[in-house]
């Protein structure tokens, strides 16, 4: 019961908690699953030089990014025995406290979901051309860099 068809990864704006709840609900008919693991990236209100980040505006080289997401998907299914895998990333404005990345993996057994989830998140951070403009409360900005 793998689920390898390409998905639309990008969503305009923040990813809502309702959307995440509904994604979980959709997996309750898949009764071979014993373990889910979910990573959520949330925009932090970091304070830099006395100014707090109010939002991040995400842009992407979308064609290349979708290609990379697809490669990460294939590589993950090859490496780990997963039942399902879903990735969603925001584009546009995501306010501090809102969710910009949702990665969801499911498997019959737990060990594999921990390894697979961390692998996917690190691959996304390293290889997907997404750019983040950290917008401060006074409308000034700086460009975010993954570490």
């Amino acid at each position, binding site marked *: 019961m793998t689920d390898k068809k390409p998905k639309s990864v990008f969503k305009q704006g923040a990813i809502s908690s309702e959307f995440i709840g509904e994604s979980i609900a959709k997996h309750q008919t898949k009764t071979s699953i014993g373990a889910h693991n979910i990573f959520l990236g949330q925009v932090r209100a970091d304070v830099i030089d006395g100014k707090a980040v109010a939002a991040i505006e995400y842009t992407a080289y979308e064609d290349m990014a979708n290609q990379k997401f697809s490669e990460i998907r294939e590589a993950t299914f090859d490496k780990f025995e997963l039942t399902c895998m879903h990735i969603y990333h925001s584009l546009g404005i995501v306010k501090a406290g809102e969710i910009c990345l949702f990665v969801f993996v499911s498997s019959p057994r737990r060990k594999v979901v921990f390894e697979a989830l961390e692998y996917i998140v690190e691959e996304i951070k390293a290889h997907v051309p*997404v750019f983040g403009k950290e917008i401060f409360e006074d409308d000034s900005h700086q460009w975010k860099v993954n570490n």
Partner: protein
Amino acid sequence: MRITIKYFGLIAEVTQCEEETIQFSGHLISEVLEILHSKYTELKNKNFQVAQNQELVFLETRVTGQELALLPPFAGG
């Protein structure tokens, strides 16, 4: 040949545009960058990678005439 170049994030702030088409008569990525560095002098101080046909390439890679992109550091997730 004519090549299309896309700019993203802080690179697009330097170039003041997100995409342009230039006339190019050289062979290597490094030669394209020489043209861009002379057009946008501030580029020299910026950190970026180059993608051709949606794959990262090196300075010595040959230009195939397809789409190039200048990519600043990634910040996904």
